[in-house]
Each structure stands twice: as structure tokens, then as C-alpha cells.
């Protein structure tokens, strides 16, 4: 087990190192002169070439790729993501302030998604092929096909404009978070419903279940103790992907509802070519993914230790 854990951690470290390298390589090779972009963003006017060169040296852009990479990664490993190349202020506090808006939104979206999808999936899987099941699948497919910006606008139109129950834009009160969270949650619910439903159906086809019924084990106990763990395996597998969907959706929803958060943070950073900010977002997202996948792997090994043994 310790050996397996070591392997998992090693894999995580390799993924993180690769992400860091790829991120830096992309920025290094981005079209246009980054030094010029920084200068324009900072001074809002065309300035002399000397100042541009000074900024180039300041940002370590004139050395070779590896030298620049090393001087870039060193402070990051110590938790210092540097200063914004536009404002000159440290990146991390600004990022934390943005995440303060986004993380609760994402969690609320996830919670709404789970609360809606689990009962719907169980209900649909009760009688596969019935009109209830087909209806649930159709709603879920529709939900997955509708883009978040359209669904968001639709919700705004209904609840903010026509019914005037909820505020549409901004983030002043908790009520402002309801529509964005709902937009996000409905999208999550749509994809989770389909995955959980097919997970349950697959688990119900396990060859040993008739024997449990013949032994007199109640349907309720079979569902709880045997179908649920088997259904959980594929659901957990796609959970990592679901997380990507959640982050992407949160960024989009923030833009639609004009909320502060990682969405506006990232968009403004990209527009200003504010490298340190973009890097910080990418690297922290990668770290989050690696941690979640590590937890998923450990969860797997807990419910089905054969998975770990097959790897070995």
C-alpha cells in the first residue's frame, strides 16, 4: 500500500512538472513581444525602446529558455507567484480574493447538481426504457446540450426580468448567487444524471445479484450494499472530468452574470498579457486536478483493492 501511494505521488509530481513546463513553453512561444505588451499595459502609451528593454531584463525574458524557466519556477516552488506585470502588486492575494467568489459558486453548483441528479438517476434507472426513464434521459441530454450562457440568460429573463424575484447582475448579496449557482448546477445535474443512471444500470447487471435475491436479501439492502458501490466506480471515474466542467462553467457563468471571481481575473489577465497571473491560475488549476485525481485513485483502492493490484 505504501508502495502504491508512493507510485501515485510520483505520478502526480510528474504531471505537475509537465504542466509547469508546458505552461511556460506556451507563454515563451506566444506570438508578439511580451515585453512590449507589458509596457503598453503598464504605461498605457508607446514609450522609448530603452524602457521596453529594461522591462525585458526585469522579467528575465532576454536569457535563454531554460534559464528563464529556472528563474521562473524557483520562486513558484516556494509559494511565490510573483507580482502582476501590469499592476506590480503580488499575484496571490488578488487570486485568493477572486477564488473567494468562485469556490463557493462552484461548490453550490456541485451541490445543486448532486441533489438533482442522484434522485433523478435512481428514479430513471428503476424502470429502464419506461417513459419516465426516457423523459429523464431526454431532459438530461437537453441540459447537457444547452450552453451555460444561453441557460443563464434564460434564467435571467424568467426570474429577474419577468418575475422580478431575484437580482440578475453583480455579487452584492447572497441572493445574487442564486441564479449563477442554478445555471451551473443544472449543467452539472444534466451530465451527472446520465452517468449515475448508466452506472446503476451496469451495476444492476452484475452476475451475482440473482443469488443475493435467492438468499433472501431484501431489494433495499441489495441496492444499498451491492448496487451502490458498483455504481459508484464509474461515477467517481468521471468526477475528475466533472471538475473541469465545473471550473469552466464557473468562469463562463461569472462573465454572464458580471460577477467578480476567477473568470474576470483570468479574462483581464489574458487581455493584458499579465503572464504571472495567467501562470498562477493555470498552475493552481493543475494542482487542484492532480489532488482530486489522487483522491479518486485512493477512493478506488478503498472500494475495490483489485484496481491497485492490477497496477502492480
Amino acid at each position, binding site marked *: 500500500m505504501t508502495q502504491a501511494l508512493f507510485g501515485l505521488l510520483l505520478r502526480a509530481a510528474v504531471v505537475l512538472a509537465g504542466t509547469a513546463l508546458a505552461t511556460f513553453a506556451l507563454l515563451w512561444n506566444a506570438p508578439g513581444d511580451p515585453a512590449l505588451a507589458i509596457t503598453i499595459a503598464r504605461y498605457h502609451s508607446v514609450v522609448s525602446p530603452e524602457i521596453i528593454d529594461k522591462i525585458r531584463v526585469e522579467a528575465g525574458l532576454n536569457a535563454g529558455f531554460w534559464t528563464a524557466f529556472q528563474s521562473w519556477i524557483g520562486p513558484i516552488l516556494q509559494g511565490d507567484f510573483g507580482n502582476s506585470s501590469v499592476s506590480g502588486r503580488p499575484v496571490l492575494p488578488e487570486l485568493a480574493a477572486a477564488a473567494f467568489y468562485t469556490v463557493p459558486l462552484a461548490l453550490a453548483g456541485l451541490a445543486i447538481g448532486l441533489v438533482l441528479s442522484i434522485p433523478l438517476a435512481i428514479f430513471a434507472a428503476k424502470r429502464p426504457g419506461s417513459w419516465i426513464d426516457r423523459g429523464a434521459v431526454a431532459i438530461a441530454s437537453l441540459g447537457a446540450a444547452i450552453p451555460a450562457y444561453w441557460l443563464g440568460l434564460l434564467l435571467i429573463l424568467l426570474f429577474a426580468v419577468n418575475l422580478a424575484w431575484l437580482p440578475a447582475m453583480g455579487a452584492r448579496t447572497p441572493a445574487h448567487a442564486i441564479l449563477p449557482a442554478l445555471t451551473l448546477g443544472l449543467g452539472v445535474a444534466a451530465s451527472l444524471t446520465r452517468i449515475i443512471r448508466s452506472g446503476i444500470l451496469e451495476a444492476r447487471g452484475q452476475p*451475482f445479484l*440473482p443469488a443475493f435475491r*435467492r438468499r433472501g436479501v431484501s431489494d433495499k439492502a441489495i441496492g444499498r450494499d*451491492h448496487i451502490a458501490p*458498483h455504481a459508484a466506480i464509474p461515477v467517481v471515474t468521471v468526477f475528475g472530468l466533472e471538475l473541469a466542467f465545473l471550473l469552466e462553467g464557473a468562469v463562463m457563468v461569472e462573465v454572464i452574470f458580471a460577477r467578480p471571481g476567477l473568470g474576470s481575473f483570468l479574462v483581464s489577465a489574458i487581455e493584458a498579457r499579465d503572464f504571472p497571473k495567467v501562470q498562477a491560475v493555470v498552475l493552481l488549476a493543475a494542482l487542484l486536478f492532480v489532488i482530486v485525481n489522487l483522491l479518486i485513485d485512493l477512493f478506488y483502492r478503498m472500494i475495490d483493492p*483489485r484496481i491497485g493490484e492490477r497496477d502492480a
Partner: protein
Amino acid sequence: MTLSVTGLSASRSGRTILHPTSLNIETGERIGLVGASGSGKSTLGNALVDDLRARGQSVAHVPQSPDEALDPLRSLNFHWAETERALGLAADPVRRQGIFKALRIDGGDLRKRPWGWSRGMQQRFVIAMALMGAPDLLVLDEPTSALDPVVAARTMDLLDEHLSGGRTAMLLITHDLGLAARRVDRLIVMDDGKIAEDAPTQTLLNAPQTPAARSLSAHRNWLSLPC
């Protein structure tokens, strides 16, 4: 107590795979249910178990392979406790130890999941669960076909010993008349979803009446086949 079922039938995708069938089983009786593959013997076994269970009779079933009886994600302890609960029995380590000793699996670690045991031990664990409630009827569906011969023979011998003199009747489902003939007093031959013949073992071996029974009887031994 005589167990009896009447009018059991089954169909799959519109095709009748078991024609209406009735059957009486006496207390402690040993019956072999034999037939070619696809003759409907497993279907009859399943229908029999389900029907008797639905009428509140005490009956247990052992499927062909432990993969069809055990959840790979759950420990053997869990399986045992779950079956005790299902039968409404209080947890009884003494009873458990008695059955495990009889089937020679008392050395196994019950905290493991099924695949932590050999297949032979898994199959004997499944048989042990079937014996737990001292059922009136034990239906064994090809109980040894997934096992190596040495383990298979040992399992059948241990089971024979455990059941001998008791009230539990046994229905042994197998395609192998040679195997069944050594273990049972009465043979039922299935053919095309119907009972073709039902007779005491020696009668059926020596004077089979139907083509299905004649074919099984003629091919029951490797070393004395007809030319």
C-alpha cells in the same frame, strides 16, 4: 415434509424454455437433474427455488460459479452476516464454525474479499452459506464445474458427509450423468424444456426409456462407451 411445485414454466424472448412442470421432493431425498446443455435444467432449478421461496419454504441455491454468488467488493464476513440477517438468524459463531469445519474452510480469513480466497474455497463458502439455515432443499447448479477435479471431489464428499442422515433434500443439477449417478438416488432427465424421464438411479442407468435418457446413459462413462 414433501416439497411440491406445480405448473412451473419459463420463457425467454417469446420462446418457451420450460414447459409447465410439476415436481415432488421428499425429505432428505437426493435427486440428480441431468440433461444436455440448453435442455432447461438450470431454468427449472431457478424456477423451483424462486417458487418455493415465494411460498415461504426454506430452500437454498448454489450457482455454478462463485462469481455468480459473491460480491467482489464485499468481505466474506459481510456476506455471512448479511445472509444471517436475511434468514432472520442471530449471529452464531458456533454454528458458523461447525459448518466451516465440515467443509474444511475454517482456516480462511473472513475479512478478505472473495478473490482473496482460492476458487475452491470460495465455492465451499457459498455452499456453507446455503447450509446456514438448514434448508429443506439445497439446489446445486453444476457446483463443481468451476473447480479442479481434486477440489471438486473433496467438496462433493464433504457435502455428502454433512447432509447424510439429515432432513435437507438435495437437487444436483449437472450435464454429467456419471457424476450424478454416484451421488443421488433418483434421476430426472430434462430434454427441450420438459422432464423426459424421472426414475430411481439404477433403473434409469440400466433401462432408460427415452432417447434423451438413453443418450445420457450411453455416454456416462469415458471408459465404457458403446461403439
